[in-house]
């Protein structure tokens, strides 16, 4: 868990295959690139509408940081079957979250804590699942608990515009359409959970308001 014996292989594959694919399918516009963390422990909190989200967030990092960047992902989905599981762990570099076991007295965030303790940059989708790409769902508070456990970790909000059109939930054919990642200024845990969650939502909504209208006409 958490160790990358094949780290160079992952970075090469992401740079040579994933990056060009992301460019062809989405154009990969990033606004606010200067706000991206260059070292861990750090948390990126983004809205979620598509598997393309993970691709966009991974490929916007330079190769020297990429080895540290790991998306939190649902274990029930991404560790299904040996091929998917191998790919998720070694290429995407996921930190598995057992979301089905949340609220059963088990610490589902433990793998994320480990990753942050190891100095990784963790990508979290606080909505917990993919939405319709338009409105933001209720944000789950796990991200606040992580920020509380690692007060030194910067929390960077990122709004992903348009990815839900390239490959919406349930679709199997990706359609090239421009996407934009809007990266906001980092903030940190300041001692209060509700204030943290409200701050995150406000920051994401502010980024969304600045996003180009890459959305369906009547969505």
């Amino acid at each position, binding site marked *: 868990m958490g160790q990358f014996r094949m780290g160079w292989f992952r970075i090469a594959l992401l740079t040579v295959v994933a990056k060009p694919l992301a460019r062809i399918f989405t154009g990969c516009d990033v606004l606010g690139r200067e706000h991206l963390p260059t070292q861990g422990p750090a948390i990126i909190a983004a809205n979620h509408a598509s598997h393309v989200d993970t691709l966009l967030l991974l490929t916007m990092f330079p190769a020297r940081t990429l080895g540290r960047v790991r998306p939190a992902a649902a274990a029930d989905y991404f560790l299904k079957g040996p091929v998917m599981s191998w790919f998720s762990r070694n290429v995407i570099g996921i930190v598995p979250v057992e979301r089905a076991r949340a609220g059963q007295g088990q610490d589902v965030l433990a793998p994320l804590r480990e990753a942050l303790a190891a100095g990784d940059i963790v990508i979290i989708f606080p909505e917990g699942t993919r939405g319709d790409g338009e409105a933001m769902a209720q944000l789950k508070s796990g991200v606040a608990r992580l920020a509380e456990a690692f007060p030194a970790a910067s929390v960077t909000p990122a709004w992903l515009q348009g990815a839900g*059109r390239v490959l919406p939930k349930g679709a199997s054919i990706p359609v090239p359409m421009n996407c934009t990642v809007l990266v906001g200024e980092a903030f940190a845990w300041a001692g209060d959970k509700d204030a943290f969650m409200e701050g995150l939502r406000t920051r994401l909504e502010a980024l969304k308001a600045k996003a180009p209208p890459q959305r369906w006409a*009547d969505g």
Partner: protein
Amino acid sequence: MAFIDDVFAGQAPALLWGLGGVLAALTLAVAVSRLLPVLKPGGDFTNLRQRIASWWVMVALLAAALLTGWQGMTALFAVVSFIALREFLSLAPVRREDRLIVLTSYLTIPVSYLFIAMDRYGFYLVFVPVYVFLLTPFLMACIGQTRHFLTTAATFHWGVVTCVYNLGYVAMLMRRPEGEMLPAGAAGMAFLLLMATEANDVAQYVWGKLFGRRKITPTVSPNKTWEGFLGGWATTALLLWFLGPVFIPVSGIGLAVIAITLPVAGFAGDVTMSAIKRDIGVKDTSALIPGHGGVLDRADSLTFTAPLFFHLVAYFGLTRF
């Protein structure tokens, strides 16, 4: 190095001189951009520097394509069409149900450029304006969402005609007509079109910056002025009049018509695309080219000048068409 020698050996001298002239102009632009902060301390010239830096990349890509002939130009403009269409369809009001129509719109690119590669001008001429025009609304009808049907069909048509069909004329121009007497080859014709169109954009910008006072399109594009438009028109018309005989088999009245109409077409393309962007509520179609915006921001005037230049050169100077 033998390959490099081959690429340059077969070229018309005028084309190489033309490309050299463009590099000289860019070098001059760099010198001016370095000098400006000295003359006007405190001014922000970041955008100007970004624009010029991006020009080097664009000129390098176009020069490489021109020097490799119709194959290179067809490949490059297929990519340009794809990025421009992707930018347009991502911002234009398209309905959720039209996702697969977006996908089929991209398919017009390989088909159109295949006709160019096969040198089938007749097929190219009717494919998009007649058959894609009819097929797209039919496919939309099959999907069954009738709300905003006509406006959406028009949106798709505008995007495919400008980004695929009109830009494709640049590559079509490269299909060297056998037996035609061309002063600088097919690449020379495409070079003059690209150079005049982009020089027109730059000349309008520079004249406007230096002398612009009276707004020409206040509601659509408030930065454009009569001074910029007229200065750019005169500059580009003179450029075409004097350089025309070197690159295209047209002179006299024919050349005068091209010299007078091309700058106006470039301005029209720019303003029309600005109206669309204003309607959508964006300034740039993407952030792909630093300082310029998207491919469609850069190629907006070319979507108007390319077909016009092609048709006028064909009418006045080529026996084939």
